[in-house]
């Protein structure tokens, strides 16, 4: 057999990933030769350039169809959107890392972030089981290291916990893939849609185990327990990255499985447990927020609930639902990164911005920052006039239309619970400081963090006005 890889592998398809990989290698090389003082911003600059290149290359693919790895990676529509989300998360986290990062480790950290994003983008376009696993492991391995990239007990604990629990989940995922392969005889997702699989117990068990793995990565209750601890321990920029990129990449895989890789008529049965855990997550995640005193933990629980919202949009399996899910995900990307950017902007060496007490009286010390944080909190809570509100309304409408009104009901209940928790942050900023507890002004101004805050603010506001007319339906899947 003569293999002609040039004929089947479309290099354009993986161009964004290659751009990130090259940037990552350049960062490592630069770290070897440059002096530490230069390497701090140099590494971030190379990383941002690579990210920009990847984002531009991905955007150029939009509307065309490219495939690579013998059909294991397709891009051009749906994938492009998720690649852009990953790029946004990466750029935001890199900017925050430049503000907070440890200069000794910056090269390695930036390189790992870039490699992790390669994995996330690979997942976004993965059309066969092997590519999914490859992307997932590439992302996860990078994240294990990133979590421990700071000299803090909590960080090491975070990295170890994540490594062990995530490996367990990967085990489930891999076993599920093996069963799916056993059932279908193919690693291509498209082959899982064959109708005869519906009667095959192997397919069902394989899907179940596979979905356990995905549910873990999306941190759905009861596979969520790692999230608060890992988020809390990891460095702020890494947490910001993790909270967006991992979710986006896993949601891309999940959406592709839901929409394109299930035998006709089985979706509602195969996915039922996922919808149930999504419903539980919306309640439990929001309840979990109530008792938190740490912003990263609070946002971890918030993220658990937010994934539930996004899944609610997809529950009916309608094209409109997927569009609204993506809309909400993009909005969530901006508001979540924005909240982390504010936390970074008021952080010093010890990440003071992660603790809620640091926000006491922020409105007086930094009125604009406090206003921005208020806006992000309102958006996360889904209050008008933010994109979060619009997204939730759309999700509610689509869930009612597609017969999953009970998920919509849980969404409303969860939102009501969450208001108290988000309001806690806002209240801390605007109420006069209590007694003698005084928080020092930590740093004058961290330009990159402020720019990130501004860009996220613009992003959230722009999403509010994003025209959602039918002509904007994304070309989703092939």
């Amino acid at each position, binding site marked *: 057999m003569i293999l002609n890889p040039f004929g089947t592998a479309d290099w354009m398809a993986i161009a964004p990933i290659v751009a990130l990989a090259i940037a990552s290698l350049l960062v490592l090389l630069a770290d070897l030769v440059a002096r530490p003082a230069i390497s701090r911003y140099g590494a971030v600059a190379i990383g941002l350039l690579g990210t920009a290149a990847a984002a531009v290359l991905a955007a150029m693919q939009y509307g065309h169809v490219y495939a690579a790895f013998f059909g294991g990676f397709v891009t051009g529509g749906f994938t492009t959107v998720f690649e852009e989300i990953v790029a946004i998360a990466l750029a935001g986290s890199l900017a925050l890392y430049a503000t907070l990062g440890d200069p000794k480790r910056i090269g390695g950290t930036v390189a790992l972030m870039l490699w992790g994003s390669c994995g996330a983008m690979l997942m976004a376009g993965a059309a066969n089981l092997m590519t999914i696993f490859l992307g997932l492991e590439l992302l996860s391995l990078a994240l294990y290291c990133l979590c421990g990239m700071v000299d803090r007990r909590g960080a090491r604990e975070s990295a170890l916990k994540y490594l062990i629990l995530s490996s367990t989940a990967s085990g489930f995922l891999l076993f599920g893939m093996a069963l799916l392969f056993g059932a279908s005889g193919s690693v291509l997702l498209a082959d899982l849609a064959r109708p005869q699989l519906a009667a095959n*117990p192997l397919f069902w068990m394989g899907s179940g*185990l596979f979905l356990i793995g995905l549910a873990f990565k999306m941190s759905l209750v009861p596979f969520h*327990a790692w999230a608060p*601890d890992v988020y809390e321990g990891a460095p702020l920029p890494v947490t910001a990255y993790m909270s967006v990129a991992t979710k986006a990449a896993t949601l891309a895989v999940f959406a592709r499985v839901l929409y394109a890789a299930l035998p006709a008529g089985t979706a509602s049965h195969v996915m039922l447990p996922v919808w149930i855990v999504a419903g539980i997550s919306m309640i439990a995640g929001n309840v*979990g927020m109530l008792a938190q005193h740490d912003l990263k933990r609070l946002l971890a629980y918030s993220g658990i609930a937010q994934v539930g919202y996004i899944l609610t949009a997809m529950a009916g399996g309608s094209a409109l639902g997927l569009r609204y899910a993506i809309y909400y995900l993009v909005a969530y990307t901006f508001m979540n990164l924005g909240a982390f950017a504010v936390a970074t902007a008021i952080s010093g060496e010890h990440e003071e911005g992660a603790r809620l007490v640091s926000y006491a009286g922020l409105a007086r010390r930094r009125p604009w920052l406090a206003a921005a944080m208020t806006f992000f909190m309102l958006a996360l809570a889904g209050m008008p006039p933010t994109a979060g509100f619009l997204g939730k309304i759309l999700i509610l409408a689509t869930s009612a239309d597609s017969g999953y009104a009970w998920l919509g009901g849980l969404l409303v209940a969860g939102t009501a619970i969450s208001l108290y928790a988000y309001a806690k942050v806002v209240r801390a900023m605007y109420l006069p400081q209590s007694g003698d507890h005084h928080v020092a002004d930590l740093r004058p101004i961290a330009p990159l963090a402020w720019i990130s805050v501004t860009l996220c603010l613009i992003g959230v506001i722009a999403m509010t006005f994003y*025209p*959602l*007319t039918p002509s904007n339906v994304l070309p989703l899947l092939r």
Partner: protein
Amino acid sequence: MIHHVMGNDGTYPLLIALWLLPLLGAILCWGFGPWLKARAGWLASALVGASFVLAVLSWGAGTQSVGGTLGAHQSLLSWIPGFDFGLLLDPLALLWVFVITGVGALIHLYSIGYMDGDAAFARFFAYMNFFVFAMLTLVLSDNFVGLLIGWGLVGLASYFLIGFWFFKPSAVAAARKAFVLNVVGDVGIMFAIFLIVANVHSIGFGDAFAAAGSYATPTLFLICLGLFVGAAAKSAQVPLHTWLPDAMEGPTPVSALIHAATMVTAGVYLIARCAPLWSVNADAQMLVGTIGGLTALLGAILGCAQWDIKRILAYSTMSQIGYMIMGVGVGAYEGGVAHFFTHAFFKAQLFLGSGLIIHALANEQDIRRMGGLAKKLPYAFVVMLVGVLAICGTPGFSAFFSKDMIIYGTLQHGHPWLYAVGILTAGLTAYYMLRLLFVTFLGSYRGAVDPSDLGIRHPELAGLPSDGDPAPQDATAHHHAPAWIMNLPVGILIVPSIFAGWLMFGGANSPWAHFFAGQFPVPNVVVPPISEGATSAIVFACVLVGAAVAAARYASKGALADAVARLRSESVRMPALLSNRFYFDAAIDALCVRSAQLAGTFFGRVADPHVIDGTVREAAISARWMGTLMRSLQTGLLRAYALILVFGAACFIVYYALAGGR
């Protein structure tokens, strides 16, 4: 779903520029006020003037008619389906744009003189420009939400400008009153928009009107009612009119622009814009026509009993808008709109004229303390004389044509009672306007007479404003302002005050009818027993009677000789009903404010602490309990997490084993 869009689609960048120029002015005046200083006035006037020029240039676009579709449409933003935002310039909008920018530019110019030396000169012009922008948003919007945004913004601008002299407690109170009453109206419109969206799934005018025949009748009546509550609040219709006289606390140019020429006619615009809805619901027409007629009559009666020059004009405004609302209410749309057009000129002129007097008399506003000003202020006298002749409907002057269109229209559309009210009000109008003119300008100057001799009681008891416009802080400054800058705009306004009415002359062949061809639904009219010419004659006869009574009471030789005593006796013997303005304020106070206070007390003492607080506390406690439960699972121990994970996985596996084994 096919969307109906009003206006011919295309790109009209001029329209966007026309709309946004005043906003630019507002931002510049607000942001660079300290640096601009006196130049702020010129900048603001120039930008509004530029808007006017663009409006003239858009004449062709606005009046074009392609296949029955009138005007120009410019899309701005397509949001979720059914929520498309755009600008619409058709003859109706064009008319309003002309008045807003044209009269607006003149009043801006006048304000340069009037506000000269005020500490917050630039801020004033920022507000004024902002108002023009808001008003343009209101009339150019092609959908209900855009209209409501404009509606809210003009209310905000009005609030800022009424309370412009925020150191006067009366001004602050008036601003707050206007704002609150207008919010009542906003809620009405919001309610109507909800109903419309629920029925046609769109906020566009085109969609809402194309479906006009398909609403259930009660629904349509509720929509019209909601819209009319908004219109009544903004246009000072009974019983939501009480804010308008108080709004005279603002600077006089503000009264001229906002509370006479433009903003208060927004209700007329709304009903004329929604003519397709009104014309298919007779109940709504009846309601609006009746309220309009009632307002016209009440405003005129109250106008007879006022002593403050601006308040007389305020009640006159209320009465004239009553005419307009009555016109558009019964279906005489062209007449109602025509009266808006002419009224904008002569009422602005009257207000600016009164501003000349107030300015010259160091902020005196009580006409009892004036008198004999014809010799002292001949220019103001000419201005006021033309204005009064115009508003009375003297043949040849503008209101003669527009008012007759309305009065005759009520008969054409089968409302003889409103016809009678219209004629009676015309007579009353002549009476109180001439009373104003005679008391102010004839006889001898009474500024030096002791106020108590004129029957002026304690201002607070009489319900009169506690003080007039404050003097500029630098008393010498306003002598430097050239006189022409205030006189010129007023002089220009004289021309349309006299001649604007001629556009409406000629019935169906008039330029007016041509301009609005195809704009409004054509109703079924009856041929009334009284012809249009006869109506004009009757109205004029009634005006003459009113004028004669006024002349006998205030301009006769005896009256002029004995002016002080007569004014004193009239003041003292004013019927309580009139001096308390028909107890509307007291009624609103008793009905709304008191009951709200009672409800507030009830909620504050009983419901809040026991019912709501209790529930919230329970919810908070249970939520915290759940949070604690969550936290007890979150031990931080790896093995606990692994256990939870495996537990979840086991549940999954059981489900899939069962589901797959079917």
